[in-house]
């Protein structure tokens, strides 16, 4: 059965959807800022995967172009996000994302 099973684009799409769901749920349920941050990255990469898949399916290079942009944005976001998180954890090593609610106006 495994032998006949052929890897179709649908597999990639399903994987992307699963990864995205994992990221989204993780973002909602976890409180460690670092983990939440990783969840965001996970969601971004799930979307990237989906883009590449469709790009292959539709023989359209635009999907892959978007991926490059997403990578750039993700890299920038990591710089800022990690900066904030490190700063936060330095002052309060046990801080959770909920502790940031003191910043609300």
């Amino acid at each position, binding site marked *: 059965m495994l032998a006949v099973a052929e890897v179709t684009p649908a597999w990639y799409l399903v994987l992307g959807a699963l990864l995205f769901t994992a990221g989204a749920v993780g*973002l909602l349920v976890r*409180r460690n800022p670092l983990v939440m941050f990783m969840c965001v990255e996970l969601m971004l990469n799930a979307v990237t995967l989906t883009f590449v898949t469709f790009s292959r399916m539709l023989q359209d290079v635009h999907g892959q172009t978007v991926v490059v942009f997403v990578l750039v944005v993700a890299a920038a976001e990591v710089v800022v996000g990690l900066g904030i998180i490190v700063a936060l954890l330095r002052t309060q090593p046990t801080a959770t994302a909920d502790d940031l609610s003191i910043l609300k*106006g």
Partner: protein
Amino acid sequence: MLDLVWLIPALPLAGFLLLVAFGRRLGEPGAGWVATLASAGSFLAAVVVFAGLVGEDHHHRSHVVTLFEWLPAGGFSVDLAFLADPLSITMALFVTGIGTLIHLYSIGYMHGDASFSKFFVYLNLFVFSMLMLVLGDNLLVTFLGWEGVGTCSYFLISFWFAKDENASAGKKAFVTNRVGDWGFMLAMFLAFATVGSLSYSTLAEEAPGMAPVTATAIALLLFVGACGKSAQLPLFVWLPDAMAGPTPVSALIHAATMVTSGVFLMTRVNPLLAQAYDWAPDVIAWVGVITALFAATIAVAQTDIKKVLAYSTVSQLGYMFLAVGTGAYVAAIFHMVTHAFFKALLFLGSGSVIHGMGDEQDMRRMGNLRKYMPVTAATFIVGWLAIAGVPPFAGFWSKDEILLYAFDANPVLWALGLVTALLTAFYMSRQVFMVFFGDERFREPAAVDAPVSGAVDDVEAGEQPEGEAAHATGDAEVHADADHGHAGHGHDPHESPWLMTLPLVVLAGLAIVGGGLNLPFTPDLHFLGHWLEPSLFGNEAHVDVETGTKVVLAVIAVAAGLAGIAGAAAVYLQRRIKPVEPELLANGWYYDSSITAFVGGPGRAAFQATADFDSQVVDGAVNGVGALVRGGGGGLRILQSGYLRGYALGLGVGVVVLLAYFLTRVSF
């Protein structure tokens, strides 16, 4: 030579700027001399332009000299331009001429004042503004001067602003004038809307084709402005209070020049008045004659030497408007000029008296001053005879001409004018008798019923009548300078220095011969009438009265004047009749206080209501919008919990909802 017309206002402006920059350093009397020279130069320039105009052909004596385009705004353009024509040059000549004399006088009068140079700064600025007013080629340049003289008037009335009354008198003048300016501005807007130009020449050209209703509206709105500036009913209230200023200011601004600018303006727009409905000039004539009579009755009961002259000025201005209203423009200008001579003379004379008396202004505490101030007394008496209408002094000729035109227009106007003439002679005689004749009351410890406390000899140190307070500082020095042959009586009245008496003598000369400008005997002697012709566009009224009637009218007028003098002599000189000075008149028919009561009572309530409307409704609307936004924001703030998970959930739900929406729109 006519191109030099710009020099006339430029010289006082230069003097003004010079004094602003260096006045303090020039000090006394340098600053005064600079200002006097600027004014005198301006007079010379006016004479040169006058000579140039005389050299022109009679009917081409109207020149527009454009300096630059002042306000170009699309279809609307106003030039900074001067109109050199007989009317404006006549005005310029007497403004600068009398202005120079009063500058000279002020050097003596303001001697020792702490703000000596500042006084001349204002004085030169005033002369400049006044010249812009009379020389302007369009309503806007005139308005510039109009506001300028108003500002200077304000500065100079409250020149000794340390005293509350002086400061508030200045404010009163300013505010009352703003009411008139409102009319002036509306008239300008209307003129621009109908004619598309503000220049006098265009207005004169377009006026005959203008709808009478428009012409009436413009003319009467300008008259509202004139009422403010020239102190006519109902806006005359500021002028008597304006006497708080130094006396040379009262002479220059509030008697000779600025207050006549309303008469000048109405004469300038005579084509509009000619095109207006017939009742429009009647309104002007009636306002004039009623003001004349009203103010004359008040003057009868005043005890302040300057207040008498102030009400007298209001009254004489009423005469001028009576003349304008009856189409006697030449007579109006004629009376304006002769009035400038004798009223400036009277004011300067009263200033000399006040000065010599050590800042005493109450006539009940004067008397027999002719013994101490011979020059002042002699010149004052000339002024008195001129204003009382005694031939051959200047006032007789001009007043008689006005009465003649009034008789031709409406005998009732004439009768009221005649009563005014009688009253004028009466109150002026009363003043002369109280000040220069009779007993020496200034040595008495207190006046008959004057509320002023302290002995007369202490006036300099003690309480001082309104106006001249700050002036006292320098008075001791004047005493030392003055040549008074009664040593030992340091506080006796004394004659003023030559700087002050010289202008008096010159003005007295003018008040004697001023009538020669326009003698009625033959048409050849109508110098002023002939000269002003090009500015009047044939709108001057023509009287149809036989020579015999004219003579009878003149005799009646002289008789009225003499009767007034005789009456005053009987009451105040020979004391055969007890003086009747009702409170009602002394308080000016309670006009001023009723305005105060009205504005303070219902007026204040109305202002309060307006203020409440502003604070409740207008501010309420503005604050309401603010409060709404604040409230809305406060409500929405609850949504911002600060929990990242909440936001993420919101995002997720939002995506799901949007997706669901778009997917359901796509028909499968």
